[in-house]
């Protein structure tokens, strides 16, 4: 039987096992919406802004490991989604975006609601397609899912002209797809793995540094096994938190700009660095010329272009993290590689000294709510089990520092693009993936207002989440930089005329709470999480000028950390001033 292009789209989604599509209708995509109407295999979530569709699909993907699917119309529909697509691209999140397009005959004519979607998204997708003939539709969608979910994952956009979704053809969905130009390497090179293992075994001051790639590649189990087998210290990037249990003593905390003192010092002094599923991002390395000056570097990654991009690598291994780590474990076991116990003990003694500095400590208060305290209480009240999404700013760093993530896919944030507004729609996506789990969005009064309208979507689809708003009446992270680097000239960072979030929550049909005393923090959180089937907006009035510590100022080396209380931040290096 012949199907229309629109029906084929829906059938393809079904074949791919897609549970949810996040989208917003409009003229060019109407045929597809019509095909969605009389079926219930694929559920559609109607967001209130296309950016939220992409973030929600992204949150769903990060929580579940399955690709997120977005459906938008042409023109403003797809341009609105671009920020969400770019966010997913920077963090390598598998996503398929289906966008409506004007009919093929009108393409290039400046038709109503026409934009060059393929051109606009090209720099922020893994790949994209314009389908010009319904005959190619099913295969193109198959390719889109294949490309989005394999190798280093990423968003793929398929642009669908309206006439293509109307045209008819026989539907067959290809079982398998082979592309001569796309064949990601999975298995690591055995010779390279051997070199790495020898280097690891000979290390005296080893350091394991892992990132989002371990989570994306489902390599957490292997990572834990290898790390425990070796007894080496391990640090995670902001994107990699949860891949190794944060409550394990071998975990020395997050590294980088706002990482722990022990993690950054150990990075700086290590002699063998094992980078796994990381990309040596500038938030992690600080000044490149001061990065791990003594270390031989091993780098395992699925993307060859990540290797030696920022930092010269001595032993590169291209392959999927899980399979490479498995091969390493087997080799270490079979050949009984033994680390130097004495050197390792001395190294741990040094690390414990750094750890004793307690770089995440802050000044507690009984008068005013400290933002760190809220996160600590959130951790306690949820027994460390909740899925936490965050927006971007100080609250994001405090959540990363003070909520100890013990499992992968528990911590969901926009690390690469740093997109304010990500947290709320991402929480909704995560909740849809795991309806039985507690999901909290840690946010600030700045970020939350960028996607506030999604409170309505959350109501419509009954995805109860808890919003933990650390309300400091400032664009805190920017204010912190202005305090340190611009002599407290708080240019445009004070948020006046904030809405009454309690009333606002109520207006959207949710529960609102305003908490301004430290003594009430725990009780409010308990009450909120007890309301299982309600979304609760917790507006915590926090210490206005609290800063995120420790900190490596832009341009600084890993051993040039500024600690809370001890160091007064003056100006950073001149070269640092031009960095962000």
């Amino acid at each position, binding site marked *: 039987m012949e199907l229309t292009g629109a029906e084929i789209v829906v059938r393809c989604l079904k074949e791919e096992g897609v549970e949810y599509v996040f989208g917003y209708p409009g003229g060019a995509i109407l045929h597809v919406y019509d095909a969605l109407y009389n079926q219930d295999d694929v559920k559609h979530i109607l967001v209130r802004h296309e950016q939220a569709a992409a973030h929600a699909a992204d949150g769903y993907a990060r929580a579940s490991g399955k690709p997120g699917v977005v459906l938008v119309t042409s023109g403003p529909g797809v341009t609105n989604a671009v920020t969400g697509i770019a966010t997913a691209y920077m963090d390598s999140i598998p996503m398929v975006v289906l966008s409506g397009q004007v009919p093929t005959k009108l393409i290039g004519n400046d038709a109503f609601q026409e934009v060059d979607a393929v051109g606009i998204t090209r*720099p922020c997708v893994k790949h994209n397609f314009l389908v010009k003939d319904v005959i190619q539709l099913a295969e193109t969608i198959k390719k889109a899912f294949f490309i989005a979910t394999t190798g280093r994952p990423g968003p793929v956009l398929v642009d669908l002209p309206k006439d293509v979704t109307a045209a008819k053809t026989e539907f067959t969905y290809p079982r398998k797809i082979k592309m001569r*130009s796309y064949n990601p390497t999975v298995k690591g090179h055995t010779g390279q793995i051997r070199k790495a293992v020898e280097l690891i075994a000979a290390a005296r001051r080893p350091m394991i540094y892992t990132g989002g790639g371990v989570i994306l590649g489902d390599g957490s189990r292997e990572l834990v096994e290898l790390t425990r087998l070796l007894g080496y210290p391990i640090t995670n990037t902001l994107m990699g938190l949860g891949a190794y249990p944060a409550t394990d003593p071998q975990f020395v905390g997050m590294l980088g700009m706002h990482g722990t003192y022990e993690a950054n010092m150990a990075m700086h002094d290590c002699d063998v660095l094992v980078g796994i599923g990381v990309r040596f991002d500038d938030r992690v390395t600080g000044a490149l010329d001061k990065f791990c000056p003594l270390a031989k570097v091993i780098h395992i990654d699925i993307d060859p272009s990540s290797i030696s991009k920022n930092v010269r690598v001595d032993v590169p291994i291209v392959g999927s993290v899980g399979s490479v780590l498995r091969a390493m474990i087997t080799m270490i076991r079979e050949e009984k590689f033994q680390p130097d116990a004495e050197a390792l003990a001395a190294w741990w003694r040094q690390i414990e000294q750094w750890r004793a500095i307690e770089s995440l400590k802050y000044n507690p208060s009984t008068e005013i709510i400290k933002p760190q305290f809220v996160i600590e209480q959130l951790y306690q009240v949820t027994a460390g089990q909740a899925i936490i999404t965050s927006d971007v700013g100080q609250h994001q760093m405090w959540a990363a520092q003070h909520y100890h993530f013990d499992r992968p896919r528990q911590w969901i944030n926009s690390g690469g693009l740093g997109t304010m507004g990500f947290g709320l729609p991402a929480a909704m996506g995560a909740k849809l993936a795991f309806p039985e789990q507690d999901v909290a969005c840690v946010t600030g009064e700045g970020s939350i207002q960028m996607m506030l309208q999604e409170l309505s979507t959350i109501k419509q689809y009954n995805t109860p989440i808890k919003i933990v708003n650390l309300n400091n009446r400032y664009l805190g992270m920017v204010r912190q930089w202005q305090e340190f680097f611009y002599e407290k000239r708080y240019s445009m960072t004070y948020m006046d005329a904030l809405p009454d979030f309690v009333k606002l929550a109520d207006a959207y049909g949710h529960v609102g709470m305003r908490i301004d005393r430290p003594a009430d923090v725990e009780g409010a959180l308990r009450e909120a999480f007890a309301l299982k089937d309600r979304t609760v907006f917790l507006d915590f009035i926090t210490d206005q000028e609290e800063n995120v510590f420790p900190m490596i100022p832009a341009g600084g080396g890993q051993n040039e950390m500024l600690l809370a209380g001890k160091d007064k931040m003056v100006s950073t290096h001149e070269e640092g001033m031009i960095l962000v």
Partner: protein
Amino acid sequence: MNNTRHIISILLENEAGALSRVANLFSARGFNIECLTVAPTEDASLSRLTLVTTGNEDIIEQIVKQLNKLIDVVKLIDLTEGPHIERELMLIKVKATGEQRAEMQRLTDIFRGRVIDVTDSTFTIELTGTSDKLDGFIGAVHSDNILEVVRSGVTGIARGQKSLHV
């Protein structure tokens, strides 16, 4: 690290937008691109793209990796890594009156070019060779006498049995 000139030869899926992906990559990542040529091959589904770029070892490594990462890139080689033949075609229109005519003809012969169009005051000369050789010819003609220069951009192929194919 020294900057060196590289000729990268690519087999590209003959898809709409494939060329812009390559061009986009160079502008987005700030890589230098000196020249770019594209043409169909004997296989209708593939185009052959040759590009010339300069950079140090690290940059060239990144360029090659990033190009390989593009889904439309089927295969590529850096021709400058081995023995290879480089050719570029130039059409150059020069003033040619009086004594200049014999002089221009002699110069063309030295460079093994051909005069392919003649008027009472101009010659149009065709010349093939490496970019260096074409530069050499331009250098040998007084700039006042050059009316127009058209160059095809570099193409190249590996010497010997090595070949780039799918």
